[in-house]
């Protein structure tokens, strides 16, 4: 199937929505510590805001039990200057992130062993798309102002990978709905995957919407990967050569969440009467 067609962008202003994965099950067993990872990401966010005065950044934290907004660069609280040891932007983001993590932990209940410890990617993706697109659909007379600001949605979705598959198959339908909605509205989804195996959801998301999917090899240099690959705005992507995927996995294993044989035969799910 064809990937998203490229649109012509006249300016390099962008709105970047970053989905940060804060799944504690992954970060406790990862080689890169969460604090180092955060320092890379904060530097990256600062850099995006510096690239163009009109750029905006929104950060949504994807937890194990819930998702929430932790940072919005366009809100008034974040516009003041340096205050003490670190800029206001960083301190407010870190504070909100900590509050979110405490709340997320309080929400967890006892889980049976062996269940896939995936983050709620579908929830944060849906929230991000609402944030970008709901305003644009309804107000055609504001569109003249908005044509200069391209709504770019980029997900720095750093997906965990403990033992088993990282993609929770129960979220498949919701994630695919969100991906098609993003494709229809020309919002590209970029993904940066830090775990050890591959995430079929993120590959498909980036392929279908026309974004970039990359798995950094050397995690100590994460900031460099983020800056060179993911900080490019949509206008520049027409002449900057970004990494292409080797092959995208469209097989039915992503639907059923388990290994399927090569000559897959799928029962036609639509033909069965759905449960009422």
């Amino acid at each position, binding site marked *: 199937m064809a990937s998203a067609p490229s649109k012509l962008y006249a300016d390099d202003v962008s709105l970047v929505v970053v989905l940060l994965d804060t799944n504690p099950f992954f970060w406790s067993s990862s080689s890169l510590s969460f604090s180092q990872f955060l320092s890379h990401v904060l530097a990256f966010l600062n850099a995006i805001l510096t690239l163009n005065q009109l750029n905006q950044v929104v950060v949504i934290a994807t937890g194990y039990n819930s998702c929430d907004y932790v940072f919005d660069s366009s809100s008034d609280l974040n516009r003041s200057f340096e205050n003490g040891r670190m800029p206001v932007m960083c301190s407010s983001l870190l504070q909100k992130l900590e509050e979110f993590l405490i709340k997320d932990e309080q929400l967890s209940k006892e889980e049976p062993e062996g269940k896939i410890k995936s983050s709620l990617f579908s929830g944060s993706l849906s929230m991000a798309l*609402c944030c970008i697109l709901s305003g644009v659909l309804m*107000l055609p007379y504001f569109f003249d102002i908005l044509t200069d600001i391209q709504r770019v949605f980029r997900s720095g979705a750093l997906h965990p990978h403990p033992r088993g598959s990282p993609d929770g198959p129960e979220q498949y*339908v919701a994630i*695919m709905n*969100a991906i098609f909605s993003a494709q229809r509205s020309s919002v590209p989804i970029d993904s940066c995957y830090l775990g050890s195996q591959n995430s079929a959801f993120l590959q*498909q998301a980036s392929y279908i919407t026309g974004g970039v999917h990359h798995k950094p090899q050397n995690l100590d240099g994460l900031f460099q990967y983020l800056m060179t690959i993911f900080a490019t705005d949509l206008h520049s992507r027409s002449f900057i050569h970004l990494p292409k995927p080797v092959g995208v996995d469209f097989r039915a294993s992503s639907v059923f969440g388990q290994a399927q044989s090569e000559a*897959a035969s799928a029962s036609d799910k639509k033909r069965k009467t759905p449960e009422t």
Partner: protein
Amino acid sequence: MNNGAGRRINGGAEEDDDEDDVNGDLDAWERTYTDERSWESLQEDESGMLRPIDNQALYHSQYRRRLRSLLSTAARIQKGLIRYLYIVIDLSRAASEMDFRPSRIAVIAKHVETFIREFFYQNPLSQVGIVTIKDGVAHCLTDIGGSPESHINALMKKLECSGDSSLQNALDLVDGYLNQIPSYGHREVLILYSALSTCDPGDIMDTIQKCRKSKIRCSVIGLAAEMFICKHLCQETGGTYSVALDESHFKELILEHAPPPPAIAEFAVANLIKMGFPQRAAEGSISICSCHKEAKVGAGYTCPRCKARACELPTECCVCGLTLVSSPHLARSYHHLFPIAPFDEVTSSHLNNPNCKLQRNCFGCQQSLLDPGNKPGPAVVCPKCKWYFCLDCDIYIHESLHNCPGCDSLRHS
């Protein structure tokens, strides 16, 4: 207008007719200025800038009415997702009438193009064919296939209208083609009829019974007036008949046929269908493509059974006949089977209740739910997760996204 002023001076006896005469002399565009003074409803906000006219609430209430009517029938209905649809376009003399600007056939062609794209977007596994009726004879313009561009290009080239229209010939032709498709597919015909008569070689009632036996669901959209034979056809085969009032109504009517219709119970038998899910080849690989019969570099799909290369999906493998799809194609149809529940409106009594702590920001976009005057503005609430959303998010969620962010954001809801 001079005439109007002249008549007014002429006398009291004609005063009752004055209003009508004055208005009757005005063109339609002038009448809207005398009756509705839209400039008077403009308002300025505190800084002197114009406030946009609030048609958002109107749009939203229309949208919710439409949504409720669509979902008023049972929430989970079996639907035919693999559809084989023939679009029958009437190219008779009547289609060149100019009551639709610039002509009926131009309007039909424009909206059929939009419809075909929307159809393939919502039903990626389905196929479409186009049949035209001209000079009393029905021709098959394009064979049934899954590529929107080929249909649209073929249609745009052949838009000349002449002769009579024949409903029976079209139905016979379509019946012949649709009898060849596999039994799991749903057979549909959409007739865009501009004429007010039909010239048939035989008894059209027999043809209608034949279509009914072949389980073909015929729907008609008329552009002239309502006809008994179209109504009878739709009733017998289980389709819908509607007559378009103007161009925007026609667009609405034709786009109603894009989402899959409910399946007729005795015709829809559950079956297992063998499908292949090919992997996309890497960028640099070279292979011989089975549809173009030449060597191509990269960007193809390999059939899992016979390893032949196909250029695009969904398609049937040329070598072994296996239906090739990718999982996003199946996933695109899920929202028809598992629709999201409509959100409830938050009643004003609930909003004004001081005991109830209102959520300040919409959960989806974080915009404030309060009016500029700090009063609670219009909002909707999800019945499952009880989060509040603004009207923009509500429309976006139900029309495009089909997920509730609140329900998806809580693991144990």
